[in-house]
């Protein structure tokens, strides 16, 4: 057996070791993505007919919108990101996933936690802090599951044969460290019986929100893209030093961004935050240069496949970063702060950037996980179109609504036309997510049926008779 065959054999083993944990993580993520987008769509309908759901408290905008956002980030983005992270770590280490059962258990605990949190929000038990609406029980489940998955990931990382780290390692390791840190801090200070006093709650909440939605998603999304882009393009990442520079500037400046400029807090807080946000232009340019120089002129044709996803997602990331910077500019912040422009940036970050990059990675991984590949390979291209149109319509219309609203001095009616177009954006995203759900669920069912068949065949097979009969 030569080395190439050896490699193929090893890769197949790695993929097999990742199969069950990844299917558990991706399956739940697919379910929550569909539910989250459905809730987002329903919430958006409020702007067509405000009294549509007036009968039922759980269906009012104040319940649906936070539930939708939480499902998109906690239900979909984080488990999907962790699944891809496990696979990348195993491949980069050229080793099978260590402790593969731990992430399986953790994935189920995680999805249970998301379910508890989701039900609690709809029941009116939200904690009242943005992105931290989940109650303590759900938060603990999420925290424990994350640490369990991180243990498996770091153990796999420790198996690596080459000492030198690949750029994706930095981004993904930082993400593994940062989430437990910010999530425990925010929960211990806010979702507790003894919270910090007064407006400090708001400061910590803003810090957490920015670090979760901008920094954490950026670390995972960019880390994943830096692994798959060179792999698909068939060229090395350009270059290691640019990546190092982008990484450091991203975590140095990104973690301080996100405080509103007019906030009723000591002035040094928003000022520092605005400065950090403006400096974010440095990592954004660095990431843009890396991506362009890596994919420009690559011979790969994308045809609506993973390569298309990754390129579109990275473009969305750069745009999302610029949205963040614009909001921090003193000239614009007065008109854009507290408008839908902020919501546009959030959805661009979650759906336009992270979801699309992670789907690019998932569609690269998924066919290798189970024999027979994707049940509906044509859906991949259709989903890409749905997500691109969704991003354009949702983010474009929300940003437009925000600018109009700001110009009109926060007249609520000024934003309405934009918000109604946004409904169409949610619909496209929902359609796309259904295509993914169809692929992964049919795939999982086929694999389980095959498993059952194997077991039945094993049971039915005649018992081996012992040779030494008395």
């Amino acid at each position, binding site marked *: 057996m030569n080395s190439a065959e050896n490699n193929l054999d090893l890769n197949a083993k790695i993929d097999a070791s990742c199969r069950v944990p990844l299917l558990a993580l991706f399956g739940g993520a697919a379910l929550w993505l569909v539910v989250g987008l459905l809730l987002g769509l329903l919430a958006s309908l*409020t702007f067509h007919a*405000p*009294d*549509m*759901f*007036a009968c*039922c*408290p759980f269906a*009012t*905008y*104040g*319940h649906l*919108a*936070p539930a939708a956002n939480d499902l998109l980030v906690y239900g979909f983005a984080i488990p999907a990101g962790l699944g891809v992270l496990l696979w990348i770590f195993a491949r980069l280490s050229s080793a099978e996933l260590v402790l593969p059962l731990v992430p399986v258990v953790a994935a189920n605990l995680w999805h249970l936690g998301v379910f508890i949190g989701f039900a609690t929000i709809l029941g*009116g*038990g*939200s*904690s*009242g802090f943005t992105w931290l609406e989940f109650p303590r029980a759900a938060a603990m489940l999420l925290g424990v599951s994350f640490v369990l998955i991180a243990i498996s990931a770091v153990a796999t*990382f420790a198996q690596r044969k080459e*000492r030198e*780290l690949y750029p994706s*390692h930095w981004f993904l*390791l930082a993400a593994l*460290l940062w989430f437990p*840190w*910010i999530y425990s*801090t925010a929960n211990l*200070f806010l979702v507790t019986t003894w*919270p*910090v*006093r*007064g*407006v*400090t*709650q*708001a*400061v*910590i909440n803003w810090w957490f929100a920015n670090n979760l939605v901008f920094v954490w998603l950026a670390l995972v999304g960019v880390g994943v893209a830096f692994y798959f882009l060179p792999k698909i393009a068939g060229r090395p990442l350009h270059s290691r030093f640019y990546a190092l520079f982008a990484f450091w500037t991203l*975590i140095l400046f990104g*973690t*301080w961004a996100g*405080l*509103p400029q*007019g*906030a*009723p*807090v*000591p002035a040094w*807080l928003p000022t*520092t*935050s605005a400065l950090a946000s403006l400096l974010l232009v440095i990592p954004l340019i660095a990431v843009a240069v890396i991506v362009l120089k890596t994919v420009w002129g690559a011979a790969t044709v994308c045809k609506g496949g993973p390569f298309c996803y990754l390129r579109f997602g990275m473009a969305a990331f750069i745009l999302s970063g610029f949205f963040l910077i614009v909001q921090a500019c003193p000239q614009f912040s*007065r008109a854009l702060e*507290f*408008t839908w422009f*902020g919501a546009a940036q959030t959805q661009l970050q979650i759906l336009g950037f992270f979801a699309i990059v992670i789907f690019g990675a998932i569609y690269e991984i998924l066919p290798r996980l189970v024999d027979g590949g994707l049940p509906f390979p044509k859906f991949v291209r259709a989903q890409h179109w749905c997500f691109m149109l969704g991003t354009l319509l949702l983010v474009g219309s929300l940003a437009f609504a925000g600018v109009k609203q700001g110009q009109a*001095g*926060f007249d609520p*009616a000024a934003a*309405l036309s934009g918000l109604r177009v946004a409904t169409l954006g949610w619909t496209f995203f929902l359609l796309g997510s259904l295509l993914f759900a169809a692929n992964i669920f049919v795939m999982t069912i086929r694999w389980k049926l095959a498993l059952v068949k194997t077991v039945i065949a094993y049971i039915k097979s005649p018992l081996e008779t012992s040779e030494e009969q008395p």
Partner: protein
Amino acid sequence: MKNGFAVFFAVLVALGGSWLGFVVAPAIQLGKAKQAIILNTTDTWPLQRTGEATLGLQIYRANGCATCHTEQIRQDGVAAEVTLTSLGKSKPEDLKAFLQSLFVLPELAKLTNNLAATLKDWKGDLPATLLTTGDKTVADAFADRLKAAGAKSETRVVATGADLPRWGVRRSVAADYLYDFPVQLGSLRVGPDLADVGARLPDANWQLLHLYAPKLSVTNSAMPSFKFLFDVRQKINGETSPDALNLPPGFAPAAGYEVVPKLEAKELVAYLLSLRADAPLYEAPFSPITSAKP
């Protein structure tokens, strides 16, 4: 960046910086915040909310009101405002003519249009705010001219911004939220800001009607009705209960029925009415509005 530990340590430092800056430092600086003193008095601010209003905050939280409403009024900057308080011996027409003769002054060049518009509507009523400018020296020079003409004026430094005085008389400050948990600052204004709604719209009945049918007071409102905070019940012996909402036709229930607020609705309204940012503080002073427009 060759081994995992070096990465881990460096990342720890980089990320830890923002944790120290935005979690630990504010907790130290603001965590021991005490009540502020209301300007020119010995009274403290804020007062603890009433029990009913404190419960109302939980209704506000549970229904996700902060998804669409902020509770923070921003200030953009300050401006000097010259208010005419006495005409002295001159007649309004004379003073008007004198002021119009000042338009040629170079320092007033940029303000001429505003001043002309103000003077056009002015019929000699006092006090009248004649000039608003970001430059205090221009305001002082203008006040000196008025003094030379025998009129008396007051120059005040006032806060400016799109939120003022539309949603409140002064900006929100950290002290306003001292007793709240959770603090519901919000980040999106689908509807109006509520930091001062208790002073702006102090009628409890209006608030209840607005919760029951937002379209009653704002025809194109995007706010959903919060009907589930109310009971529609049969009138007892045909008599209307004192709590019942006085609804116009089209919104009223069937004959013989009445709409009464549940406990939750009353608590929520108590909370809304307790939302006030109307005490002048050292860090956010304001002058009482002398000529409020209706």
